[in-house]
């Protein structure tokens, strides 16, 4: 041991001649795991301060994971384009088609545009689909090995999850902003206060749904499972959220399901915010702007947003737990 660990500067010269010694007595190789003594007397690598588990190190990790999501998003124009096609189809094709139907039941000349009703729901849909899609990229990372590079890094797993969550949420938020820009086309005014409120609500939903997506992706081994997630999680969340129809006068079983869908508590505040900024006939308002109720009690917007935030926090907690257990 003392040969290898010698700290005498004089002996720190590599003695190549020692190599011959091992050759000479090579008749019977020792079966020990002891390295030859000439090794070990080499100069140490350039000293470098290493990450020390401090908060600033975790912050750097979070920012870098976030930044990577943005770089990848920016490089993928096709992804942005395709993610916009679906909500545009819903809003302008389905929305226009349904408008002619819904319009018939309205008092003549009420001037209520069904697309205005649909708009907040479609923005939420954009967030739902793109957030889930961004977090599913974890499965890609696993398949192409990059996840391993992240998992072996000497940072807390929570930093990776938080970075991924903020990153995924940012990209889906940006895509929802593109949809928000279309507000004028469906009769929603660009009032600053309205826009700021909507943006705040969109950010909250993006974070919560991305956290949900990470939970789903954490255990997913193959991309094939993505279709399962779409059918069993994303579409039910979407159809039950009230994005497409008012949550009033529904059969009991359906009403119950809509009330346990966390998306409901994101769509409703956004719709209420939008419709409050418009002058629409009372008859239309009572149908389309009717707030969500729990056993007849009208749920305040603050509480609704609290439900979304709590859901997101729980999902984030679960995903951190799942990531911490990953090898």
């Amino acid at each position, binding site marked *: 041991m003392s040969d*290898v*660990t010698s*700290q005498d*500067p004089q002996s*720190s010269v590599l003695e190549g001649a020692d*190599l011959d010694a*091992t*050759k000479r*007595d*090579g*008749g*019977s*190789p*020792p*079966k*020990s*795991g*002891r*390295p*030859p003594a000439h*090794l*070990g*007397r*080499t*100069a*140490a*690598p*350039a*000293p*470098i*301060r*290493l*990450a*020390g*588990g401090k908060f600033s*190190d975790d912050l*750097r*990790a979070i*920012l*870098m994971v976030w930044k*990577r999501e943005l*770089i*990848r998003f920016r*490089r*993928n124009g096709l992804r942005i384009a395709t993610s916009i096609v679906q909500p545009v189809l819903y809003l302008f094709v389905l929305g226009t088609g349904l408008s002619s139907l819904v319009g018939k039941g309205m008092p003549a000349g009420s001037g209520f545009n069904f697309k205005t009703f649909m708009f907040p729901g479609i923005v939420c849909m954009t967030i739902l689909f793109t957030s889930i899609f961004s977090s599913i990229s974890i499965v890609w*990372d696993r398949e*192409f*090995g*990059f996840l*391993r*590079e*992240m998992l*072996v*890094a*000497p*940072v807390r797993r929570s930093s990776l999850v938080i970075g991924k969550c903020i990153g995924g949420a940012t990209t889906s938020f940006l895509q929802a902003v593109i949809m928000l820009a279309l507000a004028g086309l469906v009769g929603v005014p660009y009032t600053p206060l309205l826009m700021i409120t909507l943006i705040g609500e969109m950010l909250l939903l993006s974070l919560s749904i991305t956290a949900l997506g990470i939970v789903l992706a954490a255990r997913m081994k193959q991309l094939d499972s993505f279709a399962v997630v779409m059918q069993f999680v994303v579409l039910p969340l979407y159809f039950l959220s009230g994005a497409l129809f008012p949550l009033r006068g529904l059969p009991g079983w359906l009403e119950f399901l809509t009330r346990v869908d966390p998306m409901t508590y994101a769509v409703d505040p956004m719709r209420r915010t939008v419709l409050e900024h418009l002058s629409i006939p009372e008859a239309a308002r009572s149908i389309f702007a009717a707030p969500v109720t729990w056993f007849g009690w009208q749920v305040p917007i603050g509480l609704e947003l609290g439900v979304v935030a709590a859901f997101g926090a729980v999902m984030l907690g679960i995903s951190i737990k799942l990531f911490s257990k990953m*090898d």
Partner: protein
Amino acid sequence: MSRELLDVGSDTVNGAFSEMAVEVKELKKRFGSFEAVRGVTFDIGVGETFGFLGPNGAGKSTTISMLCTLLNPSEGSAKVAGYDVVSDRSEVRRRIGLVFQDTTLDDYLTAEENLKFHAELYGVPRSQTAGRMSEVLEMVGLWDRRKSKVQTFSGGMKRRLEIARGLLHSPRVLFLDEPTVGLDPQTRSHIWSYIHELRQRESITIFLTTHYMDEAEHCDRIAIMDQGLVAVIDTPEALKASIGQDRVRLTTDDDETAIEELESKFGLAATLSEGEVTVYVPGGESFVPRLFSELGVSILSVSVSRPTLDDVFMEYTGRTIRDAEASMSEQFAAKPWIRASRR
């Protein structure tokens, strides 16, 4: 030796390592009822290039995964850079560089962005990041391609970039798991010249696994691993010298009779591997004429060679590395879950 003293020493003072770079004691790993690593013990000195040689499925990758803190050992203990791989996981991770068998780069990012990502996650000081990045990129000859997306890289370039990335945070120990697998011979020799340059410039400890015999020659010491156990550890020269005999391989009309006669007439233990009868004798050239005159079966061909690491492997495990791989893949075919759990 207290932990505090060690901490100061290992991070700042030249050559002040008071422990081995890697210390492994009776390390075992089981996957269900399959014992992938069945108790290995060895030490690696600071600055040494240490090779794990063995067929696929010998337990090399499993051992390396345990040393890199990616797998928890079932039994035994291991220390890397002075820290326990189970209780001081993150201390170990800060001090090791990893290059896996499979690529772990982000194809959508440029070479530079991949390195930057690594630097941020490993906490390389901001003031040193740029300098360190250009240093490692230049070393592996990718400086000109630093702005290119990794998508556009060949397999060899990706491997070089991964080596550069593994070195970025100046690790104490660099783990290379099959660094040249799947690469063409020319690229393989390039990778080796980078590894040699690296030893001189960074003077770090390198631990690599390989199943190419010729590559094991590059190591200061090699451990031959087979079926979850280390058969022998020594310098390649000493291992070859330990055989002390030439290898005579012959093909005959009737191999079984030939083996019997070699035993009865010459007192030699012959084996049949890869379709050839193999015997080890001192002074192979002078043995051949005797062989022709005394062996009862007709000989189709004879070759005599000096001992290579192939022979060393044969000597210590009783089979050639290719035979070992063939039998290993049969075993895997029978138990597909082993492969799955190894991922």
